């Protein structure tokens, strides 16, 4: 690479000298947006770093103003879609879906000093920024929309929503259901075309329970839905036409034709039994037929449980060469825990790629309670095509933690379609996040507890992380306790949330003031959406305050950045 001998007219440039063999390369990364754009035109970035190079420009494009007190409709705001095209809201009674298109106010200023320019009065109106596309009723009767559930199928711009009836505790364990799991009479998944609100297809689960956040994982066009009650992982495909197609159901059966094979075998055995045991009374024959049915709890383990047991068995078998030792090992590690393994149920599932699932196994108590610390948990990797278990670990396994630490970003199965999802900061792809993890690790008193805590986040929920470049740890430093890429409700504070530049550790780039600061905040619910849209960047923060008198007031705070094209040379110095 040639070195540039012409000094850039730069007051606050950063010079980095990089030795490449005998040539030295001077790379300026100035704070001036215009000069960075010009530099981008003439200089080729290092290969394979186009996304990083584009993201670095966000160091210059930061929110700069806040508009308070915008009157907005009384809705429950859920989320911006990751591509920034839609704002998803639900009605207060959780029956309707309302979708807005962010249209953004456009404004330009030609004065010398743009900072003193006031935004026009229409900037204070919700309608200036969002256009309502439609209001569609999803729930009818006694159903309610599950307000914590929304998945976006980005390729086809479909949205996946769920409605359900009330939960029935102490439901009887009939029809193959597991004892101890509640039941919901009707759970419906709605596939909605986001552009016009047409409901393309529905999938109904009756007398079932799918767990918190509906136990759903979306990978590209494949959907994995875990039925806790019937211990089945339903794999569905979302077609381009907007239809749900059943691919397979993993649980009691692994392959698509297992059920047919076992039923025909059962028929055959019944005939044999009848022939052999003709003299026996009728109830014996009934017992015989029952044994051929694969009801969980009987000693005939089929489907995924059988695969799991054979994996464990073979692993222990291969550990020892000596036959006596082998048997001892099996007794101690396998047969002693046989019933514990047999009692395990599938809790949660995620895709690792199109053919592999990461399955969390646990106890029934672990399924219904939120805290899983004291309950046993295991992880298994299952190949859907070969129907083999590839790996099986307890949640305290250091080997699994080692893989988690090194390849965390691969656990977040990001499909190839959305490029920016591959660039979310994790401790395995970002040195600053790794440092934070190391700090936590060094402070921990018990390493097994630390391992359990870290692995408790597996399997990951899909679409729970914001891909915004403002959460990129290489660009900005921010307090993870106050704000982070995870879509989690947090207790808000009065203090503004600061985003500090990584390259200039003392430079505060921007801050987000979570509230007006003059109210006594009892309980604050915060929902933050952050994304880029064309030339302006919007941070929309929606908060509901429960005031001192018990009233609920809603504020939509919008921060909007307006780029003045004529003055962009001096605007951001």
């Amino acid at each position, binding site marked *: 690479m040639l070195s540039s001998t*012409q000094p850039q007219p730069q007051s606050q440039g950063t010079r980095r000298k990089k030795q490449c063999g005998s040539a030295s390369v001077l790379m300026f990364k100035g704070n001036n947006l215009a000069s960075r754009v010009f530099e981008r035109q003439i200089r080729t970035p290092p290969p394979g770093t186009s996304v990083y190079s584009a993201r670095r420009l966000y160091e210059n494009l930061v929110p700069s103003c806040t508009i308070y007190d915008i009157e907005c409709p009384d809705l429950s705001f859920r989320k911006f879609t990751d591509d920034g095209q839609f704002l998803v809201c639900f009605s207060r009674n959780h029956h309707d879906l309302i979708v807005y298109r962010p249209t953004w106010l456009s404004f330009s200023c030609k004065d010398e000093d743009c900072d003193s320019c006031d935004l026009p009065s229409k900037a204070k109106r919700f309608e200036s920024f969002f256009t309502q596309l439609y209001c569609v009723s999803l729930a009818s009767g006694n159903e309610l929309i599950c307000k914590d559930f929304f998945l976006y199928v980005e390729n086809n711009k479909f949205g996946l929503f769920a409605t359900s009836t009330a939960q029935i505790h102490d439901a009887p364990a009939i029809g193959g259901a597991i004892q101890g799991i509640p039941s919901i009479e009707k759970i419906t998944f709605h596939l909605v075309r986001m552009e016009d609100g047409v409901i393309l297809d529905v999938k109904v689960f009756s007398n079932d329970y799918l767990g918190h956040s509906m136990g759903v994982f979306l990978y590209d066009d494949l959907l994995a839905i875990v039925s806790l009650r019937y211990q089945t992982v339903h794999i569905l495909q979302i077609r381009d036409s907007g239809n749900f197609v059943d691919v397979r159901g993993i649980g009691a059966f692994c392959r698509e034709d297992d059920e047919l094979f076992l039923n025909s075998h059962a028929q055959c055995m019944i005939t044999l039994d009848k022939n052999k045991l003709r003299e026996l009374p009728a109830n014996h024959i009934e017992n015989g037929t029952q044994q051929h049915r694969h009801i969980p709890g009987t*000693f*005939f383990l089929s489907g995924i449980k059988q695969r799991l047991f054979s*994996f464990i068995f*073979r*692993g222990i*078998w*291969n*550990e*020892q*060469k000596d*036959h006596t030792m082998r*048997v001892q090992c*099996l007794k101690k590690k396998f047969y002693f825990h046989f019933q514990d393994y047999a009692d395990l149920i599938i809790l949660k599932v995620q895709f*690792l*790629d199109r053919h*592999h699932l990461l399955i969390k196994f646990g106890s029934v108590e672990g399924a219904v309670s939120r805290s899983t610390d004291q309950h046993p948990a295991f992880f298994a*990797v299952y190949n859907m095509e070969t129907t083999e278990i*590839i*790996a099986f670990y307890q949640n305290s396994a250091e*080997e699994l933690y080692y*893989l988690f630490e090194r*390849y965390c970003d*691969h*656990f977040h199965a990001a499909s190839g379609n959305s490029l920016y999802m591959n660039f979310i900061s994790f401790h395995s792809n970002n040195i600053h996040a790794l440092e934070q993890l190391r700090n936590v690790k060094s402070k921990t008193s018990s390493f097994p507890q630390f391992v359990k805590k870290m692995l408790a986040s597996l399997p990951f929920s899909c679409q729970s992380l914001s891909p915004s470049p403002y959460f990129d740890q290489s660009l900005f430093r921010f307090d993870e306790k106050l704000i982070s890429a995870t879509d989690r409700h947090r207790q808000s504070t009065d203090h503004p949330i600061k985003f500090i530049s990584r390259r200039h550790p003392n430079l505060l780039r921007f801050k987000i003031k979570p509230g007006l600061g003059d109210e006594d905040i009892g309980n604050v619910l915060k929902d933050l959406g952050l994304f880029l849209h064309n030339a302006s960047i919007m941070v929309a923060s929606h908060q509901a305050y429960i005031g001192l008198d018990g009233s609920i007031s809603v504020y939509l705070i919008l921060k909007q950045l307006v780029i003045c094209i004529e003055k962009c040379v001096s605007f951001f110095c």
Partner: protein
Amino acid sequence: MGSLLGDWPSFDPHNFSQLRPSDPSNPSKLTPATYHPTHNRTVPPPNQVISTEATNILLRQFYQRAEEKLRPKRAASENLTPDHGFKQPRGSFPDETSN
């Protein structure tokens, strides 16, 4: 001037003034240096195709560990697959349950 760089803008108009354009009728005597291998030990196989591994690194790690775990330590004599045609009746496992 007809320089090789044409009329590209330059910070200092006197830069590149020493550069003489190459004359197409009188080609330059300089030939770029080329390097040829002196052996063929590192020739790739004739129909080699280089492609990306389908499984990601995490899954490769899982498979590698599974292979190590399930690879029998002894060759062939104590393999687990039952003899063909001899199905164990349901209820008894293919090993000694005594002692």
